[in-house]
């Protein structure tokens, strides 16, 4: 009797899940994909928002906590672009670092404006959400695609934090996981408030009413063997 009961449950689960899978898969053959270089994308990312693109680059960093994002550089090796997993990719393996990959995905944009920053600030004020590692929605941060990797050899700690684990610099949703007591929480809140102010200053300096953060959500990728 019990065996029959569990068999039925397993059969039911299998049936339902198989039916669901086919609905979720993104069909690449239906998409018109443009080939873009990292440099071209960085120069004019806003033109590609919600557009399927194909991009090649060398992986210079894979997120150490869960492998949910990686960074690629183009031929010049200077500018990098963030790639996140999509519905078909569970995680990026850290062994991808140093490999050249081709990614097919959709360019995404996060608009960081006063409303966004006000919500973020309110959540910092609440505190407890960030202690639990939740945080502001979207939470992919901004500015991660620009600039050079730090010189790790000049400052060991700084270099390690900045390059080996960009998760904490990328998005404010990750902050708070490291909280260890109220003192740490207060320090983290201060750090986030400073970051918010820095972003406000950056918006003011840009002469626009917002900043944009761009990344690619992966549909599929492959390693290019040379």
């Amino acid at each position, binding site marked *: 009797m*019990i065996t029959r009961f569990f068999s039925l449950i397993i059969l039911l689960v299998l049936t339902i899940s198989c039916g669901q899978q086919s609905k979720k898969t993104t069909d690449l053959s239906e998409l018109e994909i443009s080939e873009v270089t990292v440099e071209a994308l960085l120069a004019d990312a806003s033109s590609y928002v919600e557009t399927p693109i194909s991009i090649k680059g*060398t992986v210079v960093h894979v997120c150490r906590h869960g492998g949910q994002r990686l960074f690629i*550089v183009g031929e010049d090796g200077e500018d990098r672009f963030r790639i996140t997993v999509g519905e078909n990719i569970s995680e990026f393996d850290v062994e991808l670092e140093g490999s050249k990959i081709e990614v097919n995905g959709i360019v995404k944009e996060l608009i960081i404006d006063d409303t966004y920053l006000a919500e973020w600030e309110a959540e910092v004020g609440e505190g407890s959400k960030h202690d639990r590692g939740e945080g502001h929605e979207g939470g992919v941060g901004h500015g991660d695609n620009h600039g050079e990797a730090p010189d790790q050899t000049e400052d060991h700690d700084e270099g*390690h934090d900045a390059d080996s684990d960009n998760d904490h610099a990328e998005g404010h949703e990750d902050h708070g*996981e490291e909280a260890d007591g109220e003192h740490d929480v207060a320090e983290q809140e201060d750090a986030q408030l400073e970051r918010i102010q820095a972003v406000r200053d950056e918006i003011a300096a840009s002469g626009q009413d917002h900043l944009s953060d761009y990344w690619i959500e992966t549909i599929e990728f492959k390693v290019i063997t040379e």
Partner: protein
Amino acid sequence: MKIRKWLRIIHRDMGYIFFGMSMVYGISGIALNHLGDWNPDYIIKISEATLQNVPAADDISREVAGTLARQIDQNYQYRSHFFPGPGVLKIFIKQGSVTINLDSGRAYIEVIKKRPVFREMNFLHYNKPKKLWTWFSDAFALALILLAISGLFMIRGKKGITGRGAWLTALGILIPVIFLILYL
């Protein structure tokens, strides 16, 4: 009573079936609770070294970069390299990466290994397989509810839900409520 007999059977057999899942979620749960203290997915070892006679950026080919990495450890296997900034060379090796300040020769070495068992458990805990795993883990969650309910009524008498069980159950509910009051 017949219903109590069935509760025992459900509790026992679900306990057997979901023993493995309980271990996966329990162990990885502890691991993920302490993400600030360690990386449950990878073992990352960081060290430093100083290299002599480091060539200028223009003179660094694949072969030269590979030789530089092997100066630190003969077993390092070159994969690729790039220049993240002026005067900085990053060499990817099979074991991780080496970042070298070309002016000072100081090298920062990061060796990464997957942490066995925990990485796999976290992979499941985070529902990274998605698809069928979502349903199986839902079944586990449902089973936990059934285990909890059946556990309440399995034993009668003063050690059951009408006696000591009532106090312990109340305590188990009260603790999370206190945390909610304090922190929410």
